[in-house]
């Protein structure tokens, strides 16, 4: 393992440094998605005709993806539990399951988007679709990035290294889940 400064071993606040950092990451992510969703909300409330466009989104697929993400959150937190019990291999398994969820989510999204684009609903069709692709796309990027990091963490956890990283990536994953929990009604249900 690379050189670890003493700084990283201290914990004056009583919160492990890694987790503290993740909280700050989540804080800054909240304002990024917040800015985007608030802008969307303003336009959505200003333009009732967007409801007609929103009607073209596939609620069933959205609901299925929500289910997938909720489940992956479950496996992530189970992985955290296993890690705290010092059970590296089990934690790794759980993280792999979580990645599987993330992958499923991404594939479903790809299918969903390709059908919508095929039906002529593209980024430029209307600002609703602009926000639809921008917000969901930004979220999907977070999902993919999370999966990549998670594979690395899982690989280490399997060997019992850096088990506390399991909790950190889990926290991030729950946040990604949270964002989707709000994206789902905003983009799919409200019609």
């Amino acid at each position, binding site marked *: 393992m*690379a*050189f*670890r*400064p*003493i*700084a*990283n*071993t*201290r*914990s*004056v*606040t009583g*919160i*492990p*440094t*890694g*987790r*503290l*950092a993740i909280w*700050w*990451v989540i*804080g*800054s*992510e*909240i*304002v*990024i*998605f*917040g*800015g*985007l969703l*608030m*802008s969307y909300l*303003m*336009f959505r409330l200003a*333009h009732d005709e967007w409801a007609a466009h929103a009607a073209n989104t596939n609620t069933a697929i959205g609901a299925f993806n929500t289910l997938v993400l909720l489940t992956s959150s479950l496996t992530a937190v189970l992985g955290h539990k296993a890690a705290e019990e010092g059970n590296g291999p089990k934690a790794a398994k759980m993280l792999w399951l979580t990645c599987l969820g993330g992958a499923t989510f991404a594939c479903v999204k790809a299918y969903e988007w390709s059908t919508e684009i095929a039906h002529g609903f593209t*980024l*430029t069709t*209307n*600002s609703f679709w*602009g*926000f639809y692709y*921008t917000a969901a796309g*930004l979220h999907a990027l977070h999902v993919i990035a999370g999966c990549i990091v998670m594979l690395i963490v899982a690989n280490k956890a399997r060997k019992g290294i850096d088990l*506390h990283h399991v*909790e950190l990536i889990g926290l991030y994953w729950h946040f990604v889940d949270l964002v989707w929990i709000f994206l789902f009604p905003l983009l799919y249900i409200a019609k």
Partner: protein
Amino acid sequence: MAETIEMPEHGHDAHGDHHHEETFWSKYVFSCDHKMIAMQYMFTGMFMALIGGFFAYVFRTQLAFPGAEVMFWGLVTPGEYNSLVTNHGTIMIFWVAMPVLIAAFGNYLIPLMCGCDDMVFPRINRLSYQVFLLSAIVLIASFFVDGGGFGGAWTAYPPLSSQYEYSLTPLGSTLWVVAVALEFVAFLLGGINFVTTAMNSRAPGMRLYDIPIVVWFIVIASVLFMASVGPLIAGAVMLAFDQTLDTGFYDPNKGGDPILWQHLFWFFGHPEVYVVLLPAIGMCADVMTTFARKKLFAYRTVLYTAFGTGILSFTVWAHHQFIAGIDPRMANVFTVTTLLISVPIAEMCFVYIATLYKGSITLTTPMLWALSFIAEFLIGGVTGIFLGASGADVYFHDTYFVLAHFHYTFFPIAIIGVFMGVTYWYPKMFGTMMNDSLGKLHFWFTVIPFNLIFLPLFVLGAAGQHRRIYNYQHYPELATDELQALRVLATVALWVMLAAQFIFFYNFFSSLKNGKKAGNNPWKANSLEWVAPSPPGHGNFDEMPTVYRGPYEYSHPDRLKETGEDYWPQNVPS
């Protein structure tokens, strides 16, 4: 996690050996050491400052002598002029003030002043600089692409910034947005490091009120940045989509709204002012107390004023948009908050002034910079009231009065603050002292011309001269000889000031070799960085310090009685 917490504190001996076999690349380019990363940020920032200064030279010369051949540039076309002023602003704020004040000094000072050996995440720290460097390269590249650099002002208001047929800079504006977005990512990475390091890795015994003000302020600044930049990152993505993918987020003809960008931008843009102000004014506290041999006057008041300013700074942004088409009733709300924010800042200045009371002041170069910071910043502060008061802003908006006002805040921040920090911590950074008489010469030849540049601009602004015009001869009221004389005065002063900077660079580099050796603590200061050797080695401290008191215990009666010393380092047991 738990097991790592009790890890014994001799980690740096363990790695002490492996920094001998460091190659040039691992030592200077891909180093994870916070001091080296600080240097990288500082020199990149100074290089960008040279570019920004050169741009200022070009367009000031054009304003003083319209249509004349500018040396090293040639004729300045309107398009070039817009691009020059735009990138001058962008560079000076995002690529000079931010990297040098927050990133460089934050990286250098936080671990040293908190008494730990490095940032908590050295590799994220390195990544932060690499992303920043990339952003700088992208920005510089944008000057040379087809159509030239982006010319829509640093605020980049759409539709001008979002549609090429309006801005006529097909690639420049996109690269500009990309560069700014990358730069934000870099500082988000850096900011997380600063905050967690200062929160979690302080030396044993260092309580919240034992932290030097400059560390406090850099941390508050990082928090402000992280909490305010998000909407603009989202906005930048939308802007880039509008530019490249022809979406309509800011295009009224496609159901968008240009005002949205203004809100997204200034929601970040105003806290940003305090993001760069706080580190500079925080350095002031350390420098002034050191050279006045005085305890900081009302440490907690200073801290609370900073908190107050930080919170309020999120509620004032629309005072940049009073006449930009926002609903007039909102302007009243923002006038109230804007005038309110003057109270904590004014109080902070008063407290700093009070710190000199009963002091024993030595006017070294860093002290001169610190004092001039307060003096000049007061001018910037009071002129802000004119602009914060909505009724007066109806006239002053987008005149040179605004320009002079924010240069009277940003110049103390980005130039005086940087020189203050460099001259004060130079002995610690490089182990040698800078030449004091050269430093003083450079000080006077920077500060006096600075006032000669911007005081005339207040007059020009009051006379109704509006901003971002490449040639005022088109406006009879503004083409009078008196006003033109003021423009020439400002420009000549700028030439003098820019020329004077070579004194600094000469002093900086010659002192590396010829400067006399500085001990660990040349200024007889209290805070922890002066305990470490100069320059500090890879682990910073020979043995990790423990803190017993606050950083400003100068001329403490007990200490004077016992030892006759008028300073009391934080790590010395009572």
